[in-house]
């Protein structure tokens, strides 16, 4: 099964789940011996980090739009969403 030394075959290295370091970022480290919170979560890199700024910006713009009482804000938000969608769709296979 292992004809060549493992470290000389990068493709085979990738087939080992434990070495797929890119997949390890979201996993949790379980600490069963500790009381209280038994799971030490690692950071969820960009995904979670995007949630708070998006929500914060939404609150800010929403409050400004509500105070101004103009429909133009909603229109601008929707146009912005349309442009973001179209740009994101360029990455579709």
């Amino acid at each position, binding site marked *: 099964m292992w004809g060549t030394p493992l470290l000389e075959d990068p493709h085979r290295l990738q087939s080992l789940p434990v070495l797929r370091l890119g997949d390890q970022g979201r996993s949790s480290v379980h600490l069963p011996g500790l009381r209280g919170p038994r799971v030490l979560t690692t950071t969820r890199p960009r995904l979670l980090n*995007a*949630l708070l700024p*998006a929500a914060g910006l939404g609150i800010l713009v929403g409050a400004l739009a509500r105070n101004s009482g103009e429909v133009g804000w909603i229109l601008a938000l929707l146009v912005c*969403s349309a442009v*973001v*969608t179209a740009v994101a*769709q*360029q*990455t579709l*296979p």
Partner: protein
Amino acid sequence: MHRNQAGRSWKSKAAVYALASGLAGLAAGAALGILGGALPLYVRLAVGSILAIAAVALGTFELLGRRMQPLQFDCETPQRWVDKGPWSWATINGLTLGFGATSRIGFWLWYAIPLGAFLIGNPVAGAVIYGAYGLTRALGAVAIILAMMRLDEDISDRVIDGYDTARILAAGQLVFLGVATVIVVGL
């Protein structure tokens, strides 16, 4: 687009493609705006509030790593359209992609476009929203081709590799739009 960039007149075909895509968006948005205008404002506000909450929930799930495929026709535009000739292909493909609903959507954020154009209840505003989508979608493809010509290499794989980043961007925008809309029309 890639199949038609060969000849000297690729710029004309790209222009036709972009124009068709923009026009499809403008027409779809105007039609949705007219339809939406038939509904009373309080109904549109109520529906908009519910959809805004749904947008926040969907965007949050996505950003927390729980992927949910959007409801869509999971296909590309038919390859056989290429046989119709470059001008017809540019027109039909532009119209189809500018409308967007009949091919792969990929992101929940897309639904904000037709629903927004409908709920805003004004044909001009609807056309602006959907037209911006159609035009940007077409110009994005043109920009990729120009970049490929300038760099003299195929960057399509690199663009597709950006899907994860695009997913985060789209989900973040969905949360942003949803939260702002809830505050403006829902509270």
